[in-house]
C-alpha cells in the first residue's frame, strides 16, 4: 500500500515562526477534518459502536507530540485520534481501522480506542495505561536509550487508583515519563467538580513529581510551553506531569452531549483552529485547508475501498505465541 504522506522526523518545527504556525495549523486542521469526516461517516451508518472525537482539544496533540523524537513512545486513551494523527500523519490507516477494515491499523480488531502503530499505543480502559507507560519508559531507560514516554490522560481518569500507583513508582524509580493531563472540565457527562476533589498538580507533586499547568488552546503557546518540559524529562530522566486546561467542543462519544449549551457556546471562542488561522495569511490558510481536505478525502476513499475485517482464521493468541 502506498504511503500517502511522509511522517517525517521529529522536531519538525524548529523553524521560522511563520512556518511553525502553518505546520501546527495544518496538523490541527487534519485532525479536525478527519474527525468531522468520520462523524459524517458515522451518521451514514458506516461506523459501528462509538468514537470519541477531540474537537476543541487538537492543540494539545500539536503542542506536545511535535517535540518527540524517533524512538519516543506515546500511550493514549479513548480519545486518541488527535494524538495518533499528530504522531503518525497516517489518516488513511486510522480511517480504515475505525471503518472496520482488514488493512486498518490493527486489522479492525481494535477500532477507534485500541490502536497500535510503531511506538504509538492506545487502550480504552481508563487509567490502566499509566503504569504500562511507566514500564515502557523504564525499559527504554534501562537499555540505555534516551527515549521518553508520553502518556495522555483526562481529568476524569484521576478517579482511578492505579494512576497513583504508577505515579509512585515513576517517581521512586525515575521513569522518563511525561504525563499530559487534558483537563477538558468534563468526564463523559460529569463536570470536573463532581469527580475531582482537590488539585491534580498538587496530587502529582505529593508523589515528588514535578508538575505544572497551563490554560491554553493556543497550539503555538502550548508548543513553546512543552518544549522545555520534554527536554527536561529526557535530560533528567525523571517524570513530569503537566495539566492542560482546555475544553471539549464536541460530544463525549458519538452524540451524547448534555452539557449546558451556554457553557459550550461560550467556549467556542477558545477553538484552537481559528486562533492559529488568524495568524496566517488568508492564502496560506486556504491552501492548507484545501490540501488537508483532499488528504482526508483520499484517506477515507481509500479506506472505504478496503476489504472488511474477518474471514480470517481466528488465531488463539495463546496457541500462536506458545514456545
Amino acid at each position, binding site marked *: 500500500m502506498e504511503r500517502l504522506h511522509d511522517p517525517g522526523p521529529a522536531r519538525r518545527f524548529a523553524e521560522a515562526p511563520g512556518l511553525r504556525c502553518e505546520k501546527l495549523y495544518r496538523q490541527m486542521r487534519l485532525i479536525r477534518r478527519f474527525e468531522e469526516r468520520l462523524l459524517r461517516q458515522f451518521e451514514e451508518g458506516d*461506523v*459501528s*459502536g*462509538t468514537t470519541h472525537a477531540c474537537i476543541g482539544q487538537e492543540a494539545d496533540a500539536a503542542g506536545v507530540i511535535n517535540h518527540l523524537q524517533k524512538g519516543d513512545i506515546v500511550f493514549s486513551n479513548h480519545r486518541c485520534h488527535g494524538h495518533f494523527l499528530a504522531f503518525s500523519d497516517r489518516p488513511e490507516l486510522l480511517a480504515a481501522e475505525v471503518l*472496520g*477494515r482488514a488493512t*486498518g491499523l490493527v*486489522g*479492525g*480488531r*481494535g*477500532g*477507534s*480506542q*485500541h490502536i497500535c502503530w510503531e511506538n504509538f499505543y492506545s*487502550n*480504552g*480502559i*481508563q*487509567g490502566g495505561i499509566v503504569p504500562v507507560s511507566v514500564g515502557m519508559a523504564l525499559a527504554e531507560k534501562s537499555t540505555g536509550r534516551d527515549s521518553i514516554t508520553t502518556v495522555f490522560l483526562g481529568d*476524569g*481518569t*484521576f*478517579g*482511578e*487508583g492505579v494512576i497513583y500507583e504508577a505515579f509512585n513508582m515513576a517517581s521512586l524509580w525515575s521513569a522518563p515519563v511525561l504525563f499530559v493531563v487534558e483537563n477538558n472540565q468534563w*468526564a*463523559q*457527562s*460529569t463536570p470536573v467538580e*463532581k*469527580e*475531582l476533589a482537590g488539585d491534580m498538580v498538587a496530587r502529582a507533586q505529593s508523589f515528588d513529581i514535578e508538575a505544572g499547568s497551563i490554560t491554553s488552546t493556543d497550539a503555538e503557546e502550548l508548543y513553546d510551553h512543552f518544549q522545555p518540559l520534554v527536554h527536561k524529562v529526557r535530560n533528567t530522566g525523571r517524570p513530569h506531569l503537566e495539566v492542560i486546561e482546555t475544553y471539549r467542543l464536541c460530544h463525549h462519544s458519538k452524540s*451524547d452531549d*448534555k452539557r449546558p449549551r451556554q457553557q459550550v457556546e461560550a467556549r467556542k471562542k477558545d477553538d484552537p483552529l481559528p486562533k492559529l488561522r488568524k495568524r496566517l495569511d488568508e492564502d496560506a490558510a486556504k491552501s492548507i485547508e484545501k490540501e488537508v481536505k483532499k488528504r482526508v478525502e483520499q484517506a477515507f476513499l481509500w479506506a472505504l475501498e478496503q476489504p*472488511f*475485517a*474477518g*474471514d*480470517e482464521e*481466528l*488465531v*488463539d*493468541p*495463546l496457541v500462536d505465541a506458545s514456545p
Partner: protein
Amino acid sequence: MATTVLKSLNTALHEMMAEDERVLVMGEDILDPYGGAFKVTRGLSTEYPKRVWTTPISEAGFVGVASGMAMRGLRPVVEIMFGDFLLLAADQLVNHAAKFRWMYGDKVDVPLVVRAPMGGRRGYGPTHSQSLEKHFLGVPGLAVVAIHPLVDVGKLLRTAVLDDRRPLLFIENKKMYARSLRQPLNGRMGAMEVYSDGAVYPTATLAFGGLVGGDVTIVAYGGMVEVALEAAERLLIEDEIYAEVVAPTQLQPLQMGPITQSVERTGRLVVCEEASASAGFGAEICAALGESAFNALEAAPARVAAQPVPIANAPSLENQLLPDVDDIVEVARTRIGSIKGPRRTSFG
C-alpha cells in the same frame, strides 16, 4: 406497547427508591439529564437527588464504598458502566464483599447489588464488549444473576435489592435493553409452551408441544436466550428436531433442577454462552450435569461459545467470533446425528 428490558429495570429502581429509603444507586455518569450510559438510572437523580451517587471513575473504590454502606444497613445498587470494568473491582468483590459474611462468623450481611451490562454485538471493541461473568462464578459468597427478556426483569432486580442479603452480581446485556419483555401468556410464548420452576430467580423451560418428545436440551442465559430460541425454531422447521430451551437466571449458586430434568427427557445437552468456553458457565453445566444426570445422556454434552480471542471492534469480525444461531443449530444437529459430533470451540 410492550415494556422493554430497559424500562422494566428503570421502573423497578424508581419504585424501590420511592418505597424504601435505604435504596440508593451509585455509579458513573448516572445523573440526569444524561441518566447513565445505558439510561437504566434515568430520572432517578431528578426525583431522589440525595440517593443517587454519581461517582468518580473509581470502580474498585465505589464498589468498596457501597459494600460499607450495605454493611451498615443501606441497600446500594451499583452500576458498573460497562461490565468489562468489573475486573477493577474484583478484589473488592471477592476478598471483601463476598467474604465478609462467612469470615466474620455470620455477624454481618452485605446486601450489595452490582449491576453490570455485558456482551458484544454493538461494535464497542475489545474492552467494552466482553461477557466476564464467568470469572466471577465459583466465588464463595457471591451470587450471580443474569436476566433475560422472558422473565420480569424488574421484579428480579427488586428481589436482588430488597430481599437478598448476599452480595450479588446482576448481569444485564447491552443488546437486550431495547428488547421487549416477552412474558408468557397462558403458559405459552408464540408456539412454545413455557414452564417456570417458580424460584425467586426463575428458570424458564420452553418447548414446542410440551415436555415430551424433546430431542435436545439447549441451555442458555442472558443475551443468548433469544438466540437459542431462534435456533430451536430453526431446528424444528428445518430438521424436525424438537429442542427444549432451558433459561436459568441464577448462575451462582447454580440451580441444576430444571436442566437435569430436561436432559432426563431429551438425553442431549447443548450449552450456549457468549463468552469463550473455557472454565465458564457451560463448563460448569456440563460438569454438574454429568454429576446429576450422567445416565440420561445419550450424546456428549456440547458447548457453543465465542472463539478464544478478544472481541474485535469490526462488526464483520465480531460476528465471526461470537456464537450465533447458526452455531447452535449446527452443534445441536451433531448431537442428534451422531453420538460424537465435532466440537466448535477450542479453549480460551
